[in-house]
């Protein structure tokens, strides 16, 4: 009958039968919602991503992100034309994500919520945030050997930076087609840090090393400069660091410059509280919603269900593990030559994934020596790990972008 036919045409059943992969995508959405809600894995990102998957996978809703190509030419339409021809989700995606706008705005918010105090108090340890970027580049090379283009390989490697916005920003520029699975992998493994760090630590660090007590070492070999006026230092530091980064790795300025700006308006205090509030709340929260929903909406069965996604899941894990190990071995190497020993856990937290990595490291340390509170020490390399991976992203973009 005519009406029933029209009714059927209106539904998404036809499309569902044509691309049964959609059902798998629905299950993935439910799985991500389960992880985000029940397991509390990074719910601020995984819940909107999962809901984006849910909304996008029935084509009639016009809510899936369409990759731009020479036929549809989306990236050269105006926003109004995109909205008209491809729906509001594409409009949001092309305006906010494809342009690379949201990750820097989120970094501004991250900066406004970051306290460089722990790093400044144990500045020496910040150095170990460098070694923990090795996973990024190792996986880059492995992926190239597996046949990925250097761009895709770089986007895959950056998962090892253990920093969501950095991974998304790099993926947007180097390999926008892989954005969805890369974002999922980055946030999932960040949520799995309490599992991954102990795993790598067990394989690489001895019981004796885990018992190195940072506070006792500090008492044995006191050499730290006491900070007399923390407030002034905290205000000057982001300004100086922004200048150096702008000079040396200009391509990481959109990320690090915005992070340091956010941090500065926080440290100035009452005089810029309106800016702090916008950076850490209004802009940050709205950006998070739009980032999550649109990244989720890129994940349709055509773009997600393929072997590349599996490689990203595997490669991402590898990048995490190698980064952690890199940090640990840097500390071990240092300990070979220095009298004042450092607990290798401080290297592991160079991964970033602030502050969860530090908490995990602290718990491991306490398990082996109940007086070994190393949280404040771990935070130093942990925060510097964020800087480290943003710098690494800048290098990737500068060479491969």
């Amino acid at each position, binding site marked *: 009958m005519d009406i029933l036919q029209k009714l059927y045409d209106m539904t998404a059943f036809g499309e569902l039968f044509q691309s049964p992969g959609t059902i798998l995508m629905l299950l993935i959405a439910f799985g991500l919602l389960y992880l985000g809600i029940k397991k509390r894995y990074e719910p601020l990102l995984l819940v909107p991503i999962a809901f984006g998957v849910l909304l996008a996978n029935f084509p009639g809703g016009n809510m899936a992100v369409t990759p731009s190509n020479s036929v549809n030419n989306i990236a050269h339409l105006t926003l109004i034309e995109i909205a008209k021809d491809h729906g509001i989700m594409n409009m949001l995606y092309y305006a906010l994500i494809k342009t690379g706008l949201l990750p820097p705005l989120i970094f501004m918010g991250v900066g406004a919520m970051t306290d460089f105090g722990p790093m400044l108090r144990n500045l020496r340890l910040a*150095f170990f945030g460098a070694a923990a970027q090795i996973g990024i580049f190792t996986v880059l090379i492995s992926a190239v050997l597996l046949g990925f283009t250097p761009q895709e390989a770089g986007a895959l490697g950056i998962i090892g930076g253990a920093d969501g916005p950095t991974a998304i920003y790099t993926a947007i520029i180097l390999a926008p087609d892989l954005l969805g699975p890369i974002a999922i992998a980055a946030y999932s493994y960040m949520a799995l840090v309490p599992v991954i760090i102990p795993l790598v630590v067990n394989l690489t660090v001895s019981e004796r090393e885990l018992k190195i007590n940072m506070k006792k070492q500090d008492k044995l070999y006191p050499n730290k400069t006491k900070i007399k006026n923390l407030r002034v230092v905290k205000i000057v530091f982001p300004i100086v660091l922004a200048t*150096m980064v702008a000079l040396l790795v200009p391509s990481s300025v959109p990320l690090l410059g915005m992070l340091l700006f956010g941090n500065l308006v926080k440290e100035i205090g009452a005089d810029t509280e309106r800016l702090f509030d916008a950076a850490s709340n209004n802009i940050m929260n709205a950006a998070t919603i739009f980032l999550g929903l649109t990244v989720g909406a890129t994940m349709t069965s055509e773009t997600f269900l393929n072997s590349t996604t599996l490689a990203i899941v595997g490669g991402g894990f590898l990048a995490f593990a190698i980064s952690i190990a890199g940090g640990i071995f840097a500390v071990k190497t240092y300990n070979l030559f220095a009298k004042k020993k450092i607990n290798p856990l401080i290297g592991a937290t160079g991964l970033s994934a602030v502050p969860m990595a530090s908490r995990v490291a602290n718990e491991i340390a306490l398990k082996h020596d109940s007086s070994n509170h190393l949280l404040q020490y771990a935070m130093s390399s942990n925060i510097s790990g964020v800087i480290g991976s943003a710098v690494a992203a800048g290098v990737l973009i500068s060479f491969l972008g």
Partner: protein
Amino acid sequence: MNEPLSTALIVLAVGMITVFVILSLVVFSGNIIIRIVNKYFPETSINPSSVSKTPIINTDLDSSKMAAIVAAVDVITKGKGKINKIEKS
């Protein structure tokens, strides 16, 4: 060695060098800043008047006083009220 691989190896080298250089500069410049500030601005706050307007996060009312306030509210609200934020003044 094929081209993508040599690119990747160069990126590895440049990348790790850059990361080490930048984080060395973080350590180095951080120390310089601390020394200079310790020497020339050891005590003065940047804006004296803003001491009383520290930003809304990281209030460090010491915990005993905080506990006292929380307890007071607790008594009135029978444990169902929650203090959101107390700003230092």
